[in-house]
């Protein structure tokens, strides 16, 4: 399937009362959310807000304590196998083998979705071209720069043409050119039909590409809407020039959010 063939407007992801508790402490607390096809949905939140845990539950990497995740109208608890091929996940950490060449990495992860033969070769070339690494396909991943590794990380997740792409902070620690390149590509895949969920700390990235934004804090969604709608929530002036960062700080407060490993 090509991204162009995907129909828009239907609900692609539905979260109902989604909860995750560690040691009886809620990390994600009764989240209700709907994401439609064709959206670029931004998930914002301070450290420890529960963004990554939510995404992990969407991908069935973490079992929810309560609630329901519906992907493409399938309950992930029982029918995850049916939707795996429609899902592309770009984790925050790099998920590539350093001792494999770029094309070998893409070939490996694309093949795990059952793609083989000529179709696989084409998918590898297409994915590498998409992230601008086709001319360096024979380089070992361990020798790549940080930005190249991030782009390769994306290429490994898109070879099977997923309908829903989840980016978990994909631009951490890379140069502005690579960041800009990745954001442009996210917009490109969205324009060609893929739905995108994007989590990031960088407000300007969310502001630049997302059609709808949810702000999470202490495991709850405290605000959701377009950027303009979020501005309206914190100020009565519709024409305010408030940035997303100002909205975010107004809603979540300026208190430092220190948390230790294992608390989330």
């Amino acid at each position, binding site marked *: 399937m090509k991204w162009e063939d995907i129909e828009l407007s239907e609900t692609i992801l539905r979260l109902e009362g989604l909860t995750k508790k560690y040691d009886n402490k809620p990390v994600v607390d009764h989240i209700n959310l709907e994401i439609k096809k064709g959206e670029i949905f931004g998930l914002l939140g301070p450290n420890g807000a529960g963004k990554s845990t939510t995404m992990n539950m969407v991908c*069935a990497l973490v079992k929810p304590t309560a609630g329901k995740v519906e992907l493409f109208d399938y309950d992930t608890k029982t029918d995850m196998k049916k939707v795996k091929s429609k899902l592309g996940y770009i984790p925050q950490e790099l998920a590539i*083998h350093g*001792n494999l060449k770029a094309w070998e990495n893409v*070939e490996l992860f694309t093949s795990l*979705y059952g793609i083989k033969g000529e179709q*696989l070769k084409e998918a590898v070339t297409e994915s590498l071209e998409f992230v601008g690494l086709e001319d360096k396909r024979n380089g070992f991943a361990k020798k790549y720069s940080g930005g190249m590794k991030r782009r390769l990380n994306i290429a490994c997740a898109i070879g099977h043409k997923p309908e829903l792409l989840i980016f978990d902070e994909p631009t951490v620690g890379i140069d502005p050119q690579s960041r800009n390149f990745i954001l442009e590509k996210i917009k490109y895949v969205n324009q060609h039909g893929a739905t995108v969920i994007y989590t990031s700390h960088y407000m300007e990235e969310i502001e630049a590409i997302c059609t709808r934004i949810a702000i999470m804090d202490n495991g709850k969604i405290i605000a959701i809407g377009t950027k303009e709608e979020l501005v309206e929530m914190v100020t009565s002036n519709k024409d305010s020039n408030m940035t997303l960062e100002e909205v975010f700080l107004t809603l979540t407060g300026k208190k430092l959010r220190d948390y230790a490993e294992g608390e989330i």
Partner: protein
Amino acid sequence: MPWILIKNNLKLMLRSKWILFMMIIMPLITIGLLSNAFKSMLTTSFEINEFKVGYRTNTGSLYEPMMSKLQDSCKEQGILLQEYPEGDIKELLLNRTVAVFVDIQSDNFYKLYRSDEKKIEAAMTDSIFSGFFYQVNEAVTVKTYSVQNKINPSTEQWESKLIQEKLPTDPVPSSTDYYGIIYIVYFAWCGLVSLVAVISSERKSAILRRMRITQMSNLNQYLGKFIPCTLAIFLEVCASWILSVLLYDIHWGNIGISIFIIALISMATSAFGIILFQLFHNVAIGIVIGFIITWICGYFGGSFQSYMYLDIPKFLINASPIYYINRTLVEFSTVGHSDYAGICIGYLLAIIFSSGLIGILLIRRKMEE
């Protein structure tokens, strides 16, 4: 079958330089060192070359007329008996003209000269001459008694009849053959380190998380490690095996069955390694535990001291799979067949199937977690 996963995991294993060094070069170094260090340990039979014994008797000695017969008898045993009526005995020994010298000084006294390095030749000479003197003295006594009692001694000649029977004992391998075979087997068991190339790469990044949202089954994930690891170990062991044969001239017996056993070891090691790395999240701990278990099995199985001389309770030796493998392959090398081949293959198949089952269950449990 996840061919691409198998192919790429095999590449990861074969691209690790330190694993290649450990699996190919280390056995060669160990075989060279140990086969030289324990050369004498396995040498239980000695080849004695023909040697020369010098002798000297006094004129009119009781033994003088009998010496020509003794010379003939000694020649049959590969000992050249030669008279040196004159000359310095010490010099004859020092310049290695003779290996041993017997100086018959009177009818009841003789002196044997030897150097430190000719202990065995001296012992043989001493034995021959003792028997010779005893027989001559007995004959003289019988003759004197017959004369005194006017008895006609029997004219019948008494001849001792010695029948030599060669028993079919197992030949002992040379130290090069023994350690050459044993350490190829031992390092094949250490081959579980090949898995580290894949496991550590997966664990230091988010590869496992990415794999969990693909359509790969638990069985495919298991095979994606088991098959390349088996192939990597087998290829590395074969490379080391060929090099060791070329370098040290090691004699293996039945090549076909030996290859089959090495292939089974590669499978058993892979299956066992997968269990270890599923049980221990820390790769270093997994390696250490794996090596300790291999060392213990090797210790009981004759990898360090030859299993022929092990002073360990029999049940411990029998518990070690390495013992059956070592014994089978060494016996193939020395006698061409082995009664232990069946147990060896059975033991390896049991390890492969039981470890395989446990490994798949552990992977399934990990994925569910």
